[in-house]
């Protein structure tokens, strides 16, 4: 510790009133140890100031951005397709921080996302699937019922009939100009006379 104590630090920080400052400076002129310590303090202070000047900081960069957190959360829920490069503002200077890089594109369709800020892909997929199941089910039911109806409707419940040969024979004869009598086929008593041909 130097002879001047706290007053040396106050001198470096330029916090002494003028009378005190003269007295300290007079002491420094005669005390080499205190002079060396004052130089050291000044160097350290200058170095600290230089460190402080490098980042043009406003304090906000110290925390992760909301977008970054959102993306972290969504990574656990569902795979998010890679952001198209067009949405990342290609004209942005490289030195700019990544803050709100894809924000405008993500909020372009806010209605697709649920209000609880959960990722929308899963809910939309579920709705789509449900609709697809409905359509497939309805189609299956329709085709099944149609096929069953077609199969069941195949055979008519028609009565069994025996042709009225005797009547048909007479009616045939009427249109051909022959005597409208029954065919011997249907009339055993009216036996046909079978004779060898010429």
């Amino acid at each position, binding site marked *: 510790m130097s002879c001047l104590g706290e007053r040396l630090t106050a001198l470096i920080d330029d916090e002494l009133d003028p009378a005190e400052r003269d007295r300290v400076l007079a002491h420094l002129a005669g005390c080499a140890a205190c002079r060396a310590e004052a130089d050291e303090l000044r160097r350290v202070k200058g170095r600290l100031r230089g460190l402080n000047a490098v980042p043009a900081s406003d304090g906000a960069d110290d925390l992760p951005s909301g977008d970054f957190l959102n993306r972290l959360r969504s990574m656990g829920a569902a795979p998010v397709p890679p952001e198209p490069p067009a949405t990342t503002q290609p004209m942005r200077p490289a030195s700019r921080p990544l803050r709100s890089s894809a924000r405008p594109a993500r909020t372009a369709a806010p209605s697709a996302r649920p209000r609880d800020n959960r990722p929308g892909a899963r809910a939309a997929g579920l709705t789509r699937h449900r609709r697809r199941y409905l359509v497939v089910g309805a189609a299956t039911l329709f085709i099944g019922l149609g096929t069953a109806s*077609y199969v069941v409707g195949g055979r008519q419940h028609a009565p069994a009939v025996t042709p009225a*040969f*005797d*009547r048909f024979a*007479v009616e045939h004869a009427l*249109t051909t100009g022959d005597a*409208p009598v029954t065919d011997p086929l249907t009339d055993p008593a009216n036996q046909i006379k079978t004779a060898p041909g010429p």
Partner: protein
Amino acid sequence: MTGTPSTACHRRGRRRILIAGGLAGAVALAWGLSGDPGAARRARSDPGAVGLLRSAADAARRVPYQGRRFLTTWKGGRSATSRVTAVHTPGDGVRYTSAAGSEGYLPDASAGDATAFTKRTLDLLTRNYTVVRKRDASILGRRACVVEARRQDGTIAGRFWLDAETGLMLHRELIDATGHPVVTSGFTEISFTLPAQGGAAPRPGRTRGSSVDAPAVTEAPAGTEPESPTSANAAPNSSATSILEVPLDARALDGLKRRGWPVPDRMPGHLTLYDARREAGGAVHLSYSDGLASVSVFVQRGTLDTGALTGWKKAVRHGRTVFCRESLRRWAVAAADGYVYTVVTDAPQSTAEAVAFELPRHPDPFWTRLARGARRLASAADPFN
């Protein structure tokens, strides 16, 4: 390069004109070749001979006669003959009596058919055959004009003897391609004296000279029910058959077709539909002819009761079963798609079979079948049913 767009366009246009011209030429050629083959044949037919056949229909209504008629069909070297006594009174009709005592009646209104020639069948005859006049001949002791119908190859298909004095057809025979007779019919004896009036009393319940040309009743008491369909082997005297056929006009036929009834216009062997009637039992009677041979197809709704067809020959072709039997006439019975077809003809058995096999498969229209099935399913699922 092939050329500018305008030349390509020209070329395309020219090609189109060429194609259109070619098509028109082809159509004209096809029309010229196939147009109406009957027209050329009609031109070769002897108008006088055709006139004789036409006047025979008129004579059958006009000329009084009594005599014996026969119908003989030939199968190989054997023949089957049916004989009846026929008495015609102009203005009334023809009464037939078979040897067994069964009687038939053909009113004058449809007597034109009795010559086997109506305007329609005569048209078919001249379309499919060449009709020529031959030298007069003598038959039953009377002079007769002879008319022949010839096939395209010149062979004789039919021969007709028409009474020179009255114009009545006395004898008719159909001949197959090998020169053998197939069907022969006509009079074995005839007298042109007026028959005794006692046998010609008008039938009760029938209008004389009615424009309805179908009703033909046998000597049955009025109001007698038609015999049951199972009467194939029924009582010998089947005179209790009451027949009433109602002609079906083109509109009625179209209606039947729309309701799914199979009514083909053509059948194998140039057979063309020339007449359709609804017969008493509910069957539709379709008459086909090529001008000479006649084929009747009776179509009934239902399934075939094969129990009544014992003794019939069974033939299966292309998945269709046809029951055949030859008697005086040739019969073929088939069933398909809820219809039973009975084919009867005087032509050879092969014709009957060919027609039976060719009858259309007429499955129900898709929506009809679907609707019927849906109704059945609904009634099966109905808990209150």
